[in-house]
């Protein structure tokens, strides 16, 4: 004679399901934010020393797709151990990385910009915020998702098939994302943004918050085109003739915003003598503004009007 295992109380099942959905949703949002700019996530993997065995780019695809698969499985109620255990490993990794960044920041080893880019460029968080937020957002739902795991899940195979199909689509998306026109979505630079809102750092005893208008106050008045580029960027160098010609015209004032060092800026000047200004902007401020350099934007009276991937097209069309 066999006895049926006692059904867990209904409220426990509800809590378990809800926790799984919440954790899954957080993982899906994080995957989306990173998939918009996989190159930036690959840079992070490289800097964190996680590119073991595979290239950082390959790891970025693996991680994003794993996040999509696990997040979607949890949202679809697949609270199986083969979903929950890898999810726990992933949450553990995120909390560890953020904890390590927080500790390094507290010890003065890294600055506050070194927080985990788990949400790509969409969220700006200090190491402390990243650690405590991840701890609060990920760990409780993860633990609660283990509660009252279901014995039988209706249409389980169909749900698994959906997870597999979406994960394959995610591979394709991550692969093609850099070529898709998603810059405005993936970065903090988009039409309507004011340059007083493009900032880096935070006001604290150790650091200060500085915005782009402090470094380029001239953008507050008149019409300008700003090109974000390193001075060794090939596309910039091959477009220098056209850019110089446009700068000498009557159109908007042209600028290059770069994190290149002073020595590089001087060498660039003695090679090109550009008829426009090259302004140093710290990487912490401009890195969230692009997926790939060069990226350009048009500013009128301190407000971003238009953005372009690459150099500005037909600069002369803005001539008076």
């Amino acid at each position, binding site marked *: 004679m066999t006895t049926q295992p006692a059904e867990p109380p209904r409220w426990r099942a509800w809590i378990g399901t809800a926790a799984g959905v919440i954790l899954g949703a957080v993982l899906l949002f994080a995957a989306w934010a990173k998939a918009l700019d996989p190159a930036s996530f690959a840079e992070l993997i490289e800097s964190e020393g996680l590119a073991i065995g595979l290239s950082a780019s390959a790891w970025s695809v693996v991680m994003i797709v794993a996040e999509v698969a696990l997040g979607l499985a949890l949202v679809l109620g697949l609270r199986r151990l083969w979903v929950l255990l890898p999810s726990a490993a992933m949450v553990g990794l995120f909390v560890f990385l953020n904890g390590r960044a927080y500790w390094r920041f507290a010890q003065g080893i890294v600055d506050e910009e070194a927080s985990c880019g788990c949400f790509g460029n969409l969220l700006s968080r200090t190491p402390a915020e990243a650690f405590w937020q991840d701890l609060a957002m990920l760990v409780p739902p993860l633990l609660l998702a283990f509660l009252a795991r279901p014995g039988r899940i209706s249409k389980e195979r169909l749900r698994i098939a959906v997870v597999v199909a979406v994960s394959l689509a995610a591979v394709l998306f991550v692969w093609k994302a850099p070529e898709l026109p998603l810059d405005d979505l993936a970065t903090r630079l988009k039409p309507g943004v004011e340059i*007083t809102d493009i*900032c880096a*750092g935070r*006001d604290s005893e*150790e*650091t*200060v*918050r*500085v*915005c782009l*208008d*402090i*470094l*380029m*106050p001239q953008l507050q008045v008149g019409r300008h085109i700003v090109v974000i580029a390193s001075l060794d960027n090939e596309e910039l160098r091959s477009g220098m003739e056209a850019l*110089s010609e446009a*700068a*000498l015209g009557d159109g908007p004032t042209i600028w290059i915003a770069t994190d290149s060092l*002073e*020595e590089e800026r*001087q*060498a660039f*000047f*003695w*090679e*090109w*003598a*550009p*008829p*426009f*200004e090259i*302004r*140093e*902007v710290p990487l912490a401020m401009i890195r969230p503004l692009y997926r790939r350099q060069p990226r350009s934007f048009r500013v009128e009276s301190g407000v971003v009007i238009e953005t372009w991937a690459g150099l500005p097209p037909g600069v002369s069309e803005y001539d008076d």
Partner: protein
Amino acid sequence: MDKKFQKTALRAPLLLLAIALIAVPTLFAQAGARMNGFLPTGDYLLELDGAMVDDAKIYRSSVAQAVLIVASELPAPVLIRPRVRSVEKVSLLKMDEKADGSIDLLPNPVYAAEQGFSVDGSDVVFSVEGHDARLKPKPALAGFQPPAAIFDHSPEYQQRAGFYSPSDAVVQALRSQPKAVRVQIFFGTWCPACGQMVPRILKVAEQTRGSKIEFAFYGLEREFSGDSEAKKLGIKSVPTGVIWVDGVEVGRLTGNDWRNPESALRDLIGA
């Protein structure tokens, strides 16, 4: 003979046409290049035959895409055009110095060409009539400096100060406030934000001269963690302004306070 004459007669116009095709664009290039808008720059020092030239003035023009060097020890002002790698001597009579300190060059200012230049690390090396010349990056201004010394070191500060208009009402409030205020500005001539923002407070200092507010400007090297004054006051970044009222520190100008330093200052001292 006739045939020879005919050949020559045919060749001559072709030759003239060829010369014209080469010469005309060259003339137009010289005449067409706008050689104006040379503004003084504080980026470089001039060294001639290994010795520093104290009175050298170095100008840069975005429009002309060129650098102009004027110094008593040079046989003539020197024009460097990086795009064509040229170093040329300019006639003094072709220089038109404006009231604002900028220089325009009149048409056809060049009277002799020198050899080109080369870039040696951070230095630009060239020669003028056999003398070895070198443009070297100017060292940062360090220690307490009066505004005149800052303007002399970095003429761009003076140009930008001229463009800034502090709020009249706020300046008036600062001028009439009765407390003894000291404002010490830490800055670096190498720092891009300082280059934009310190001219603003220099303008405020100028407009509040004679009031109870005393300004002091302290230049820092790029690596300033060992600077005793910065250490004493715990300066972490530049520009930073430390403000004391009756000898007690009441706050600091940092980060986005620099948008309107006069307003931030008024708020901190309660004027």
